[in-house]
């Protein structure tokens, strides 16, 4: 994977803390690997929307990566409930299904952005920088990925 300048929290000088929500262990591992490459920390994981709400309340992560199609409760409904309780929540949807109705529905319920699977690390990195915006310290070195 390409080298990325670390994204650190500007106030606390600590890694950005993420909650990764996906019913696929494989997908969670893949996202966790990217988060670590971005200098972040996986604070927790969840396999469905209901568990995501519980974990958000417990961990208060800086950012959530949320799948859409999951058992028990789907990602879009979980976004709605989390944002209702925590309007400051920063949630990025990560799904293989990227048609406009789906994206619009997620954004209307409070998601900040959308990235389609398979996730390209350089694309996710730029989206995280954009969504975290005022929460992260200035990134001193640009991504070394020549594919950008």
């Amino acid at each position, binding site marked *: 994977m390409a080298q990325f300048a670390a994204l650190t929290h500007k106030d606390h000088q600590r890694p950005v803390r993420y909650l990764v929500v996906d019913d*696929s262990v*494989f*997908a969670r591992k893949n996202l966790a690997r990217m988060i670590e490459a971005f200098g972040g920390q996986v604070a927790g994981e969840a396999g469905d929307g209901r568990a995501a709400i519980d974990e958000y309340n417990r961990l208060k992560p800086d950012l959530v990566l949320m799948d859409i199609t999951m058992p028990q409760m789907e990602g879009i409904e979980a976004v709605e409930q989390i944002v209702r309780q925590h309007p400051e929540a920063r949630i990025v949807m990560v799904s*293989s299904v990227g048609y*406009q109705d789906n994206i619009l529905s997620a954004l209307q319920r409070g998601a900040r952005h959308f990235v*389609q*699977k398979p996730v390209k690390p350089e694309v996710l990195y730029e989206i995280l920088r954009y969504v975290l915006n005022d929460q992260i310290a200035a990134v001193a070195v640009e991504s070394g990925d020549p594919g950008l």
Partner: protein
Amino acid sequence: MKMELLQPFINSADAVLAQTLQCATTVGDVSMEAEAYRRKGLAAIVQIRGELEGRIILDIEPRTAAKAASILTGSEVGETEDLVRETVCELANMLIGNAVTSLNDQGFHFKVAPPEVHAAEEGLGATVDTDALVMSFETPYGIAYLNLAIRKNQRRRSERAARLPM
């Protein structure tokens, strides 16, 4: 089966395999089959229902799936681990999700069931009036097979047309 329905799945399979395995893929054998499907490796099946109906099977050699799992998780994964089985389901999920996005943008609406592991040695023939298209994608790490049996749901379309105001 119409090519307009198949092409998004073919394009998506090519793109998802190339990206996850980080290599070029080439399309190998293509055939139409009416008989029951006999899996060749680790297979995931996805059912679709709505304006389009049918099923898609992604069938991958274990070593190919293990390679994809190793690349994406950043650690060596053995062919027999559960993670490899889940890799096939997630690859099917990505492949079909990308194709669904394309078909949805063309105006087709349908529901996609979550991928399930297809463990039977055979079974799952083509649908009543649709043969299955089987095509292989060759990679440096082994072969992946895509088996598509999809058709437009004519009854749904005619029902919807009948409900339209004159």
